[in-house]
C-alpha cells in the first residue's frame, strides 16, 4: 500500500485512526503492529512472513547480545551480533541481489545460470537496515534490548516508515515505544507535514514526472542539449518531491500516532557542495552508513589512504543499496570520487566562490548523477549525458520550446519549492497575523483542503481510462 492512494486515504487511515484512539493506551502498540502487518501484506501477502522472521530473529539476537554483554562475555555477544548481521545481509542479498549476481556472472563468464525471478519484497532494504541498527546498538551498549517481541515488531513494521523510510534507528524511538504522549499539538503538526507530503508527491512529483516520461521516451542519444537538460531537471525535481514528500508523509503520520522520527531531507538542492548535499539528502541513509560502516572502518582517523578507502567502500555500498544494477554502482562510485576530490582538492577553491556558483556547481553534478541513476542501462545513461553536452548535434528544436512553455509555470513552483523561501514566507505571515489568530487557522484549513481536493482529483484521474472501441 502507498500513502498517496484512495485506498490509504479513505479506507486504511480512517480505520486505523479510529481504532488507535478508541483503544486503551496499553493496546495501542498492538493495533499499530497489526495494521502495519496488514499494510505490508496488502501488496504482497507472502512476504509478511519474511518480515516476521526478521523481527523474531533479531529480537532474540538482541536479547542474547545484551545478556552476554551484561555477563561480560563480549565474545559471545559478538558472535550473536555476527549471526544477526549475517542473517540480515543474507536475506537482503538473496532477495535483492541474487539475480543481479547471477546475471553479472553469466555476462562475464558466458554461462547461462537461470535467474531466480524472485520479486523484491517491498521495503526490504529499509527494514533490514533498521533491524541491523538495533542489534549493533545493543552490542555497543547504545541502547537496551527490547524486552517485548510485540514492541520490537511494532518498531520494525511501523507502517509510516515501513516501505520507503526514513530509516529509523531503534535507539531514536526506543523510549517512544514504551511511553509516548499523543497530543493535539503533535497531531496538528502531523496533519501539516502529511498534507505537505501528499501535495509534494501527488501534485508536484507526479506532474513533473510526466515531463520526464516524455523526454526519456525519446531516443536518449540524439536529444537536443536543451531538451536533455530540461528532462534532467524534470527528473531531479521528480525524485526530490517524490522521496521527500514520502518522508514528510511518514514523519507526519508518525506524529499523529505520537512518534517523532528524525528529519530525512533538509533542502538538498540548495547545498553549496556535494559534501553538503549528502548531509541534506536522505539523511537517515547517509547517517546509517557513517555510523555503521564508515566510522567502524576507521573513518578519517587512520591516515589519508585509509580514509579514501573508507569513502570508496561506503559509496560503493550506498550505490548498490539503491538497486541491484550496475548503474547504481556507477552512481555510487561517481559520488565517492566527487567526495574524495572535494575533500582533498576542490573544497578550498569552492569556498572562495560566490554562493550562487557553489549551488550551481553542486546542482549540475547532482543532475548528471541522477541521469546515471535513472537509466538501468549504463549505455543509455551515458548517451543521455552525452546529449546534455551537445552530442545530439543540436541545441534545441520546436519540441524543446513546446515542453518548456507547457511546464514553465510548474517549473517556477518547483524551483521555489526546493528552497526555504515558501517556508520563510509562511512563517513571516504567521508572525504578522499571529499564530493564535483565527485568520491563520482558516488559512491553514483552506490550504489543507485545497491540497486535499486537488490530490483526490489527480488520484481519481490516474485510474481514468476511457475505452474507445467498445461494443457491448
Amino acid at each position, binding site marked *: 500500500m502507498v500513502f498517496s*492512494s*484512495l*485506498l490509504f*486515504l*479513505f*479506507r486504511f*487511515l*480512517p480505520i486505523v*485512526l479510529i481504532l488507535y484512539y478508541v483503544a486503551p493506551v496499553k493496546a495501542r502498540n498492538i493495533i499499530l503492529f497489526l495494521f502495519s502487518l496488514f499494510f505490508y501484506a*496488502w*501488496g*504482497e*501477502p*507472502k512476504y509478511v512472513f519474511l518480515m516476521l522472521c526478521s523481527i523474531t530473529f533479531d529480537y532474540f539476537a538482541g536479547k542474547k547480545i545484551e545478556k552476554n554483554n551484561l555477563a561480560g562475555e563480549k565474545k559471545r555477544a559478538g558472535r550473536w551480533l555476527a549471526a544477526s548481521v549475517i542473517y540480515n545481509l543474507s536475506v537482503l542479498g538473496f532477495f535483492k541481489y541474487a539475480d543481479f549476481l547471477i546475471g553479472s556472472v553469466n555476462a562475464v563468464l558466458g554461462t547461462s545460470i537461470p535467474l531466480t525471478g524472485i520479486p523484491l519484497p517491498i521495503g526490504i532494504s529499509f527494514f533490514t537496515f533498521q533491524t541491523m541498527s538495533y542489534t549493533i546498538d545493543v552490542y555497543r551498549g547504545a541502547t537496551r534490548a527490547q524486552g517485548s517481541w510485540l514492541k520490537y515488531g511494532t518498531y520494525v513494521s511501523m507502517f509510516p516508515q515501513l516501505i520507503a523510510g526514513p530509516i529509523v534507528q531503534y535507539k531514536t524511538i526506543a523510549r517512544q515505544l514504551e511511553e509516548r504522549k499523543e497530543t*493535539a*499539538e503533535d*497531531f*496538528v503538526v502531523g*496533519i501539516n507535514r502529511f*498534507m505537505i507530503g501528499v501535495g509534494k508527491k501527488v501534485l508536484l512529483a507526479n506532474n513533473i514526472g510526466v515531463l520526464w516520461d516524455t523526454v526519456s*521516451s525519446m531516443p536518449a542519444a540524439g536529444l537536443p542539449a536543451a531538451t536533455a537538460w530540461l528532462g534532467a531537471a524534470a527528473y531531479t525535481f521528480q525524485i526530490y518531491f517524490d522521496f521527500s514528500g514520502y518522508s514528510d508523509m511518514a514523519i507526519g503520520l508518525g506524529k499523529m500516532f505520537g512518534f517523532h522520527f528524525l528529519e530525512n531531507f533538509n533542502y538538498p538542492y540548495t547545498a553549496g557542495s556535494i559534501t553538503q548535499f549528502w548531509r541534506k539528502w536522505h539523511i537517515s541513509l547517509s547517517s546509517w552508513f557513517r555510523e555503521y560502516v564508515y566510522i567502524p572502518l576507521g573513518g578519517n582517523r587512520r591516515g589519508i589512504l585509509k580514509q579514501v578507502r573508507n569513502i570508496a567502500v561506503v559509496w560503493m555500498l550506498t550505490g548498490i543499496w539503491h538497486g541491484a544494477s550496475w548503474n547504481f554502482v556507477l552512481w555510487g562510485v561517481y559520488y565517492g570520487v566527487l567526495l574524495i576530490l572535494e575533500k582533498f582538492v576542490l573544497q578550498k577553491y569552492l569556498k572562495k566562490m560566490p554562493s550562487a556558483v557553489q549551488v550551481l556547481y553542486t546542482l549540475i553534478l547532482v543532475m548528471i548523477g541522477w541521469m546515471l541513476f535513472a537509466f538501468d542501462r549504463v549505455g543509455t545513461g551515458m548517451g543521455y549525458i552525452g546529449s546534455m553536452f551537445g552530442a545530439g548535434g543540436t541545441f534545441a528544436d*520546436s*519540441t524543446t*520550446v*513546446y515542453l518548456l*512553455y*507547457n*511546464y*514553465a*509555470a*510548474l517549473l517556477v513552483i518547483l524551483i521555489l519549492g526546493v528552497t526555504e523561501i515558501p517556508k520563510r514566507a509562511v512563517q513571516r505571515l504567521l508572525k504578522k497575523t499571529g*499564530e*493564535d489568530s*483565527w485568520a*491563520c*487557522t482558516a488559512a*491553514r*484549513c483552506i490550504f*489543507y*483542503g485545497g491540497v*486535499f*481536493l*486537488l490530490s*483526490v*482529483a*489527480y*488520484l*481519481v*484521474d*490516474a*485510474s*481514468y*481510462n*476511457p*475505452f*474507445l*472501441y*467498445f*461494443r457491448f
Partner: protein
Amino acid sequence: MKKKQQWTVIGFFLLMIFGFTAAGLLKPDTDFSEKENRVLAKMPDINIEDILSGDFSADYETYLTDQFFLRDSWIGVKTGIERLMGKQEINDIYFAKDGYLIEKHTGDFETETARRNIEALAAFIKEQSEKYGKDHVRAVIAPNAVSVLSDRLPPFAVSSQEDAYLDALADALADESFLDLREILGEHREEYIYYRTDHHWTTLGARYAYDAWAEDTQTDVLGAQEYEREILTEAFYGTVEAKVSAPVQADVIERWVPKKKTAYTLSFNHKAEETKDNLYDGSYLDTRDKYAVFFGGNQGLTEIKTDAGTGRRLLVIKDSYANCFVPFAVQDFDEISMIDLRYYNESLKEYMDNSHFSDILFLYNASGFAQDNAVVKLGN
C-alpha cells in the same frame, strides 16, 4: 496555536478524511460508465487464493477508484487546474484552436503491430487487385485530426508520427491501390470535417473522402447536390472529451438524406429475421455514444441490399470511420457488405468467394489501423 484552534484544524482534517470515506461507502455502485464507455469494476470476490496471490488487493483498488463518487467531476477539476497552469495537452489530448480537442496518438505508430499491419494490408490488397482488377480495389486509411488539422495545434507542438506512417503505407501499397486522403482533406481543413470532441470524422469529412474515392476508382456516384443535410443532434460530446472532461462546445452530427430515395434493407450478422430498412438507430441519440446512430455502432457483418440498380456490389472492410461513409454508397451500389474484423470471426476468404463483389474497399482511420490487432484476420 491555542487549543481551540488546534482542535479546529484536527476536526477539519478528520472531516475531510471521514467525509470522503462516508460518501464513498454510501454511494451505490455503478455498473457502467457512459462517459468512458466501459463496464466499471465490481467488488472482487474474497477468497484465500486471490488474497495470497495479491490479486484481491489489485482488484479492490481498481474497484475503489472505478466507483469513486463524482468520478467525472474530479477529472474536470484536474483538467481545469492544468489548463490554468498553461498546459496545452492533458492525458495526451491537445487543446487546439477553435475549441478542438485533438488526440496526440503518441506511440501509436511505432509499434510492432503498426508495422505488421502494413505488411498484412499490402499482401491482401495485392491479392485482391489481381482478382478484382486494379480499379476496383482500394485501401483508404483516413488521416486523423492531428495530421490534417496540424495548423490548429498549439504553437510548437509536433504532430505525431502519423505522417511518416502514412508515407510508409503509401510506399508499401505503391501500385496506386492506396488512396491518400491527406491532400483532399487538407484542402478542406477550414471546414467542419472532424468532430471537435470525438475521434471520428464528420459526415462532411466522410463525403469528401467518398467523392475522392469515387473519382479515383472512376465510379459514377450520386452527386453531393442530390442530398439534403439534416442535423441529428447538436449535443454530441465524444470520446476525446471524455478523456479530459473539459468545458467545450458540443459537436453536431448530421446525416445526408438523398432527395430521391433509394429503397434498401439491411441485416446484421446473418440474422435475416432482424432485417431493417433504416441505416440510423435514433435511440443512440439519447445516450452518450451518439456516433453509434450510424448503423447502431460497429457490427461484425452488415449486409445491405438496395434497388439502386447499378449492378455494382461493394465489400467494405472497415472500422467505425466507415459508419458515416457507407450511407453514401447505398445510392450507388446494389449490394454492400461491411465487415468489421474486430468482431467478425468467420473466414473472410470464404465469404468473399461465396459473394460476387465488384469492388473492394478497405477503410480505416490511421491510428485505429496502426493499433488494431484484428488486421491480421485479413488472412483468414
